[in-house]
Every structure is written in C-alpha cells, then in structure tokens.
C-alpha cells in the first residue's frame, strides 16, 4: 500500500489549517469542511487497499531521517488497529465541523484551524511507527484541545484548560523518561540507539522484571491520565463541561483512546512480564472506576458532567479488557475504543444541539423535550441505548468480549484448561463487579433520558426560539448524526467486520505478551562495565545521592 496516503492523511488537514487560518473569516467553515471531506478520500483508499489478512504488518510504511544521532527518524505505517482508529478519527472530522457551524460565532478561523491541526495530530499518533513521531503527535493533540477549551469554553474555562494541559503534560513527561530508558536498554543490547517501535517491542521484554516494573509505572503515568483511569480522571468532567461541542466530541471520541492505544501499543508489548504482574491492580482500578464513576453519574445535575463520568465508567471496561491480556480481552477493548467513540460522540452531539437551543446544561431546567423535539429524542434514545450496551447496537459486543475475557483470564481456570489464549490475570469476580456497571449505566442514562426527553415540558424561563435553528433538528444536524447511528447499528449487528480485521495483530500481541522473554540470568547479561551502575537503578531511585565508585 503506497505510503503517500498516510502522509496525505496527516498533511491535508495541516494544509487545510493553514488555508483556513489565512483565509477569510466567513469562508472558514466552508474551507474546513472541504478539507475534512477531502481527507475522507485517502482514508477510503487506505481502507480499500489494506490487506487485512496480514493485519499485524505495518502497511504503507515510510520514514524520513531527521536526527540520526538521537535516533530520531519519523516513520509512519498503519497496522489493522491503527488503521481502524484512523478511520474513526477521519470519520468524526467532518461530523464535528458540521456540528459547530452555528455554535461558534466569533474567531471562526482560529477555531477551525486548530480543529484541523488536532485532526492531523490524532492521525499522526495512530500512524506513528516510531517513538518520536508518536510522542510529538501525542503532545501535539494537547495544544489544540487546550486552545479550543480556553477560547471557546463556557464559564470557568481557564481552570479547566490549564488542568487538562498540565495533568496530561506531567504524565507524558514521565512516560518520556520511561520510554527513553527502554530505548537506552535496547541500545545497550543491540548497540544502536533506535526509537523504532518494532525493534523496541522485540528486545525490550528482555529487561529484568524490576526494571520493567518501573518503566511500566512511568508509561502508565502518562497513559492512565489520558484513559482516564480511576484516580486520574478528575480532569475529564471539568474539560468536558467547558469544551465546546466539537471539542467534547473529539475529546470523548478519540483523545481518550490515545491512552488505551498507548497501553495496547507500548505498555503490553514493551513490558509484558511487569504488565502481567500489575494487570490485577489495573483490573481493580478499572472496576472501581466503572462503579465509582457510574454512581457519581447518578447524582449529577450537569448533563455534560454526567456523560463525562459515563465515559470514565465505560473506559473502565476497555482497560479491564486490556488487563485480562487474552484474545477476547484485547479485541473487546479495541472494539470498545471504536464503539465508545461512536456512541459517546453521538451523545455529546445531541447535548451540543440541545445546548445551542436552550443554553443550559442543567437537567433540572429542561425537561419533556419529546413533545417539542421528537427527532432529537429518537436519536437521543438511540445513542443512549448504544452506550448502555443494548444488544444489536455497537456497545454490546465489546462489553460481552470484555466481560468474557475477565471470566476467562482466571489463573485457576486457564491452568486447568489451556494457558496462552486464556490469560491468568483477572477472575470471575472482576466480571461480576464490572457487570454491575451495566446496571448502573442503565440507571443513570435512563434517568437522564427520563428527565430531559420525557415527562411534562419544562423550558428555562428566558428561553426564546433560536434565530437560525428550527426547534427540532435541522437537516445539517441530522446529517451529522446519521453516519454515527448507521455505524452504531452496523457494528452492533456485524462486529465481525472489525473483529476479523484486528484478529491478526491481537493474536500476535497476546502471544508475544504471554511468552516471557526473560533471559535466564538477567544479571550477567548486562555486564559491560560502563553500565554496572545500571544494574540496580531501583536503588538509585530510592536514594538520590548514589556513590560512583563501586
């Protein structure tokens, strides 16, 4: 597959951003929309030419040398998982632009330009085959989001945007330190300082387990904040309530997936033995996240905060799948990434349309909209049911796979039957408690739908009809929702379209992760004198003033 398409996917939005930034204010929307639609073409071509049988192979690979001394070589290439995530991002692009046509009045050029840059950065992250491009794009998604929240948010947008940026930035600094340690270890083993993910994942598992544990913690510091895993989630509700509609949709749709994608692409392959050690802890955190965030949703008054906490709860399932470390777990979590993007993206679009008309997010001020906005209510119920995980819609297969993987990955169980594909990290009780998340999800989402859509009509007192928008959904708005709804239905009824595509990379990741590549005697292996001091970095960590001479 010719790498030009992946390049186009990244370059087109950037060129579009420049055109929009330096174009005319009133034509900003048109230019942005055209760019997004044009980027659909390379995505379609890639999807067409991608050979799914060897899904794990990076196709459309290309790389350009930048700073060989630091091993920096920007290389792109997509395997099945990153291709699907790229297609999700590119699909959300035009939808998000269309949704913010009437929402944004002033400074449109800046808004659309930064949205396009965000799009390019996200595609960059998924298409990156080396550490540097991944890290550059991973950080580069922060800036546009920070700007979107900062300039186009509502009341306390300043605090929200700063917390969002700093929380993720600190985490990613720790990840950078961890990853460079891995690169150093690999350079030390193979002699070349390469940032190429493939070589890293091939050699890094030889690291002794204690080093792997530290590296895993460093990586998780960055990715857990992004997911957001339970204790690190407090930035998400703030960011969501303050972000404009488009920001929220992209944040929930794709940015949260960077965390789980990072874990899938870095944490599991690079530090497999440590991951197996820490997977139960990860499982516990995600289960707590599911129930804890679910219950908080129940008492929320602000609708966006409610859906934000629901994303925290839903992504708990995704991480549970990853922690189970077996084929159904990983495929379930990848499926979850895609389906959560669609359903929660849809939900945020609905809330955005309602916010444009009623300018309030408080569930007490608005109610019984079914009588005034029937089409809106239909889509609202549709997306609610999708995120509740109604069978037949896309939430269900992913939830099934994540829960089954938790059941399967019971140590006693897989020992009795067969190791390998079944995983040994979690157990039935993880699945039972995570399952209660399904009930709690039904509770808070139905309460939200009940309060807003049904019951007697309640409107904020100062409500006046929107000058441009009709009371119910306009044609443009419906066209933003239809692709998401169709995708939800199609992936609900035919999840195997995705499952077969990603089965190859998933099987390889699981196989690699579960076979330990620990060298027989880790000590003698790293015996070059120069790194003798390296043997116990753990104690260097504990007391800063380490002595040099042995």
């Amino acid at each position, binding site marked *: 597959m010719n790498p030009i398409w992946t390049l186009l996917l990244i370059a087109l939005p950037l060129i579009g951003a420049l055109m929009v930034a330096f174009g005319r204010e009133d034509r900003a929307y048109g230019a942005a929309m055209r760019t997004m639609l044009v980027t659909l073409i390379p995505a379609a071509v890639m999807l067409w030419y991608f050979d799914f049988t060897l899904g794990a192979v990076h196709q459309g690979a290309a790389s350009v*040398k*930048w*700073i*060989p*001394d*630091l*091993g*920096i070589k920007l290389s792109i290439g997509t395997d099945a998982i990153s291709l699907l995530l790229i297609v999700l991002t590119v699909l959300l692009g035009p939808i998000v632009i269309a949704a913010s046509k009437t929402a944004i009045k002033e*400074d449109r050029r800046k808004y659309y330009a930064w949205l396009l840059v965000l799009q390019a950065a996200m595609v960059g992250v998924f298409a990156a085959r080396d550490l540097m491009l991944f*890290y*550059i794009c991973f*950080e*580069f998604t922060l*800036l546009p989001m*920070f*700007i979107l929240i*900062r*300039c186009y948010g509502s009341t306390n947008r*300043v605090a929200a945007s*700063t917390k969002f*940026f*700093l929380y993720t*930035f*600190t985490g990613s*600094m*720790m990840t*950078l*330190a961890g990853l*460079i*340690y891995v*690169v*150093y270890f690999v*350079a030390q083993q193979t002699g070349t*300082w390469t940032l190429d993910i493939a070589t890293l994942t091939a050699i890094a598992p030889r690291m002794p387990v204690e080093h792997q544990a530290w590296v895993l913690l460093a990586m998780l510091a960055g990715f857990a904040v992004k997911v957001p895993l339970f204790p690190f989630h407090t930035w998400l509700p703030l960011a969501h309530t303050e972000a404009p509609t488009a920001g929220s949709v992209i944040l929930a749709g794709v940015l949260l997936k960077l965390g789980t994608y990072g874990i899938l692409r870095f944490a599991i392959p690079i530090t497999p033995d440590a991951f197996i050690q820490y997977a139960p802890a990860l499982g516990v955190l995600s289960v707590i996240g599911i129930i804890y965030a679910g219950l908080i949703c129940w008492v929320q008054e602000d609708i966006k905060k409610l859906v934000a906490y629901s994303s925290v709860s839903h992504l708990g399932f995704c991480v549970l799948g990853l922690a189970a470390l077996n084929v159904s777990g990983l495929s379930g979590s990848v499926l979850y990434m895609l389906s959560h993007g669609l359903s929660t993206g849809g939900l945020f679009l609905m809330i955005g349309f309602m916010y444009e008309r009623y300018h309030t997010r408080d569930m007490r001020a608005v109610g019984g909209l079914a009588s005034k906005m029937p089409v809106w209510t239909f889509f609202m119920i549709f997306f609610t049911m999708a995120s509740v995980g109604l069978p037949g819609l896309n939430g269900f297969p992913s939830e099934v796979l994540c829960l089954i993987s938790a059941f399967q990955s019971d140590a006693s169980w897989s020992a009795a039957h067969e190791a390998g594909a079944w995983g040994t990290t979690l157990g039935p009780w993880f699945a039972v408690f995570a399952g209660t998340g399904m009930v709690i999800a039904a509770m808070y989402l139905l309460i939200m739908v009940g309060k807003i859509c049904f019951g007697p009509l309640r409107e904020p007192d100062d409500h006046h009809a929107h000058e441009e928008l009709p009371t119910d959904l306009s044609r443009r708005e419906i066209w933003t929702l239809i692709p998401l709804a169709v995708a939800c239905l199609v992936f609900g009824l035919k999840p195997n379209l995705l499952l077969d595509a990603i089965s190859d990379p998933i099987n390889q990741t699981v196989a690699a992760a579960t076979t330990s590549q620990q060298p027989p005697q880790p000590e003698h292996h790293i015996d070059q*004198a*120069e*790194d*003798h*001091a*390296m043997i116990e*970095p753990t104690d*260097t*960590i504990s007391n*800063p*003033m380490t*002595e*040099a*001479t*042995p």
Partner: protein
Amino acid sequence: MTEKLAFIIPELILFIATCLVMVTGQWPVRAIRNFTPWICGIALVLAGMVAAMTPGDPAALFPNIMPYAKFIIAAVAILLVINLTGTVDRELEDDVDNGKPFLPIRSTGAEFYAFFMFSITGLMLTASADDLIWLFLALELTSLPTYIMVAISTHKNQSREAAVKYFFLGALGAAIFLYGFALIYGAAGSTNLSEIAVHFSDNGLGTIGLAGVLIALLGMSFKIAAIPMHFYTPDVYQGAASPVSAMLAFVPKTAGFLAIIAITATVGWNEFGRLPATVESMLWIMAALTMFVGNTLALLQTSVKRMLAYSSIAHSGYMLVGILAGPGPDGAPFYRNGIAAILFYLLCYGVMTIGVFAVLGAIEKRNADGTTSEADDIEDLRGLCKTHPVLGWTVVVCALSMLGFPPLLGFIGKLGLFSAGISAGQIPIVIILGLNSAIAAVYYLRLVAVAYLDKGDKPATVATLSPYASRRLAGVCSAAGVVLLLVVAQPLIEGAHKAADFNAPVPHQTDTQQDQPAEHALADHEE
C-alpha cells in the same frame, strides 16, 4: 609560542573591531554612528567563519570544542547585536534630529558597543582557555563589561540598582572562584588544565584539590546563576533594558558552563562515567535545587523579565544534568555524551530566550504623559497576536519551545539532556528534570495564553511598536531559528558531539605512590 596565537585569531578580529567601534561610536557624522552596530555585526560574522575553520587545540582536554563553541557564540552574538541597537543614546539622537549639536560627552553609544564586543571576546577566550590564568582572565573579561552595560542601559534608577547588585555580587563570585583556582593550582602544581588533569588522575584529588574544585565550581555557579549564587538574577534582568537582559541571559551563562566543563574535565569522570562522589553530590544538589527554585519562583511573577530570569535559572539547572551525565566513555555516541547535550542546549536556549526578550524590547508602553516606558508587565503582552501578529507568534513559538513542546527546538535540546542523563544512570535527576519541565509549563502556558488565546477580557493596554525595527527583526530571527534550526539540527548535533569528545588524561603507570602529604614543611623540601 606563536602556535597558540593561531587559536585566538577570531578574538583578535573582534578586538580590532572593538577599537574601531570606540572610534566610530563618537563620530560626529550621524551616518558613521549608525554604522557602529554594523561593524560589530561584520566582525562577528568574520570571527564566526574563521573560528569554524580553525581546528581545535589537540593538546587540550576538549580538543575541538573551540570551533563549535566559538561558532555558536558568534551566531548568537549576531542576534544580540541586532537586538541591542537603540538601547542607549536615544534622547541624544532625537536631539540631534531636532538640530541640536552632537555632544560626544553625552553619548555612551561607543562605550556600549565596545563593552559588548569586549564581553563577546572574553566569551570566545573562555572557549579556548587551556590554562587557569587564561580561564580567570577570560571570565573576568566577559563579566566586567556587562556590569557597566547594565548601568548605562536605561537612564532610570532601576538599571543603576541592578548594576550595583550585579557588580558587587559579581565581584564576590569572582573572588570565590579565584580562591578556588588558587587552591587547585596549589594542589596540582601547574596552571595548565591538561597537566592539572593528568596530576589529578595520577594522584587523585587531595583535600586541597577537592576544596579548590568545589570552591571554584561554587564561584562559577554565580555566572550560570545556579542555586547558591542565583539571587542577583531576577533584579538584574528586570533592572536592565530588555536587550541587555537578553545578553545577560546568554553570555555569562555560556562562559560559566564552558568554565565548569573545563574544571570538571580536570577532575575527570571515572570509568563508570561518574564524577568523584563529593563533586557529583554537590552538583546533584545544585542541579535539583536550581531547577526547583527557578521553576517555582517563576510561577508568582507578573513581570515578564523576572519570569524569564527565573526561567534562565531553571534552564541552568537542566544543563547541570548534562555535567552530571559527563561525556561518557571516549567515543561515546551523542545520546550518552552529557557535555555535547549541554553545548547543543546552550544554542537552543540562547535562541529561545533572546526571542522573547527581543519582543519585549520591540514593544513599549505609551504612558499618559506622552513618555514611553518599557513593556515589562505580562499584561502588556495581552492579545499581542491580535495587535502585532508577528511579535505575538514569536512569543508563542519561543515560549512553547522553552516549555519543551515536542516538535520545536527546545524539545530536541531537552531530549538530548534526557537521554544523556538516563544513559549515565542518573535516573532520579532526570525524573526531577521531567517534573520541573511540567512545573515550568504553568508559566510558559500563561505567556502563550496572554499573547495568543485571551480574548482580552480586560482591555489590551496599548503596546505600540518601538521605533527600532531591528528588535522586531531579532525577534523574528529567533522565532525562525527555533523552527528552522530543526532542519539543520543534525549537523549542529554532530558539531556539538565532535566538540564534546573528551580525551581523558591517561594515568601514568607509575607505582601507586602514597599521596604526598600536602603540607610538608617548606623547610624539609628536598630535591
């Protein structure tokens, strides 16, 4: 003796230019006076090119540090010269325009540029120093002119106060590191750095030698504004005019680091790439404290110059990590060589900081009574992207680069430090480096937000353009540098890597003598 002269041709060029400048600066003809900065510029270009051509001194501890160091000094100095135009003699030139006669007694333009050139010459000398005396003289030559430049930069009390603080504390610092040098000479018996290095590697660091090295390092920490000696930085940077602060941010720091590299080279890194325990632990504490103090105190500042002062302290802390990492075993690749990382980071840091100072210099506040005062408060930058897009974007790009935002130059520099630190096994200090760049993100973000993002809830103060277009040019050049240097990053890194390959003194295979008792009585001195 003459072969040494070959190494200092660039300094000679600069010296000639200095004399020329002293003359043209006082010239009654306006055109000649305006030509003075051009002379400096041309001299610097010439010096830079000559320096790049001349090979380094093979006998020195860092044989080919000279070409690379002098080249980046010349490059950044050119940026500084562009930025410095119009700092002094502004009223005088206005009066001359209004027909008054040119009174040489009132003009300080000549001295200003002369002192600047002296300082740059001193800086280049530090780069080529291979002797304690040479190093001491070069350091003094670098810093003495800057005291005066700070004093005459603005005709206000604040720059005089800055000058007095800078001078006295500078003198104190100089005295301390001189005493250090004395002790080092005492311990090693020779002032030549290579011989000292050989002596230390043979007989180890005696108590006097250790004391000498520690006191010298502490003295020199004044130059790079590391922890114990950082107190002067915020007041001096705020007091001096922006262009002069820009110069202070780069010149003494580079001199300091070159000197520290020379001194730590004499002490030498053992086969595990670690400095002797005492030196390493002191440097470790200094680096950690510098980073934390620099970053945290910057959070509270409302004045941009004070914020940049603290940020420069923090950056010194980052660079100290490179010293801790050390050059690594001979022939170590770039990712292992801390010194190379420092040399490259110096360039990145120089370009970024000068960018923001240039923008500050490029705009000024029009007070109610018609006089213009210097733009210093962060509010002056509010909505700059709307009023002056070019300057606004310069601030944004430079601030993001200082933050270490990935694709920009600052990140590549910081990545060099990160990998050097980790490869040398200095994990805890690298984690502190990571944490601190996160803390730093707060105030750099505030800069970016004020310049670019805020819708200007509060009315933007009218920051008008200062008459001197050259400062805008300096700002644009540094912003362009931050972005374009990325393209040529590889050659620069190779240069830094070549400059930093350290030929450690080979310990003579003499029998393991006992440590000579340092203070054997003068009387029983036997042949």
